[in-house]
């Protein structure tokens, strides 16, 4: 995976490829609640569910079995 360096101040290629129209309509598959896009980790975070869904090459993987519990490693990196 190619990414811009962390200190360049630009968004990563990963986030540039997540389509804004897609991001606008996506919700959590379980709670139907909002998702927050964590550009650094390349994850869509459902705080209501307490899980994060991976984004692979611009394709959100909205499968619970592929998602990560936020508590496993001290939560997500969004504020």
């Amino acid at each position, binding site marked *: 995976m190619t990414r811009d360096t962390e200190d360049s101040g630009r968004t990563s290629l990963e986030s540039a490829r997540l389509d804004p129209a897609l991001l606008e309509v996506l919700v959590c598959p*379980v709670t139907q609640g909002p998702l927050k896009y964590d550009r650094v980790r390349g994850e869509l975070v459902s705080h209501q569910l307490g899980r994060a869904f991976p984004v692979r090459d611009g394709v959100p993987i909205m499968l619970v079995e592929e998602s990560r519990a936020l508590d496993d490693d001290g939560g997500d990196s969004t504020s």
Partner: protein
Amino acid sequence: MTEAPTIPRFFDSAAQRRNRTRAAPGFDGFDFLKREAVLRMADRLALMRRDFPLCLDFGCHDGMLTREIMEGGKVGRVIQADPAPAFAASAAGTGPAVAVEYDALPFAAGSFDAVFSCLFLHWIDDLPGVMAQIRRLLKPDGLCLVSLLGGATLAELRGSLLEAEQELVGGASPRTAPMADIRDVGGLLGRAGLALPVADSDRLTITYTDMFRLMADLRGMGEQNALLARSRTPARRQLFLRAAEIYHDRFAAPDGRIPASFEIITLTGWAPHESQQTPLRPGSAANRLADMLGTAEQDPEA
């Protein structure tokens, strides 16, 4: 984690996702049925006298439907969704794509001007539930246009396998998926709250040299048996050899080729909107039927 509501389970979604994932890399060698259904769906869309700026393609496979309908100029953007991440990844070459659960669509209510699904919904356990989700995703006057394999699909294969198993084992286990009957699925549209519902069915027959070629095609499409209740003991070679004989004896044409039937059911409905034609309220008629018929009205109670 919230507990999912209990729905009768016919399908094993993990096995289905595995089948689709295995089929994804070589799908273009086995996409003839999808291609046929895509062309028929695009023809229907071409007849609609309006545009659909934002659409969803549920069960997108490799993105074939989206590529076809984008050419027609009636659709703006299409978001593609598939339960197999491998298919979502290959559809991403066509436009935005996302991997989704079979029965939990991760989209906000009222997002889409149209929801399409081409040869996918026959793998859904809770079809009424998914149709209700589709209805919820539509904007007012949004279009639901979906096709799925119907109950007449693979009738010859089902019959041959059943007969061979009864002969050899004295019982039968389900080896092809249960499929929707046109009479049952027609009612789904109304039940989901979709207006102006239309259901119709098309038959296709594809001929094969033998049953094993047909079964290889079904695997290539990712459509092989994924029944939850399927027999856990591997099917014996003998069973399939006998079924192939029965298939040939019952159905082969003079040239020795065997037919395989596919039924494609297409459902069309619209999210309700005040501009749509609706039936008049009972009792609101301005003329008496009896007057128009030139007879006297009769009171059935009399």
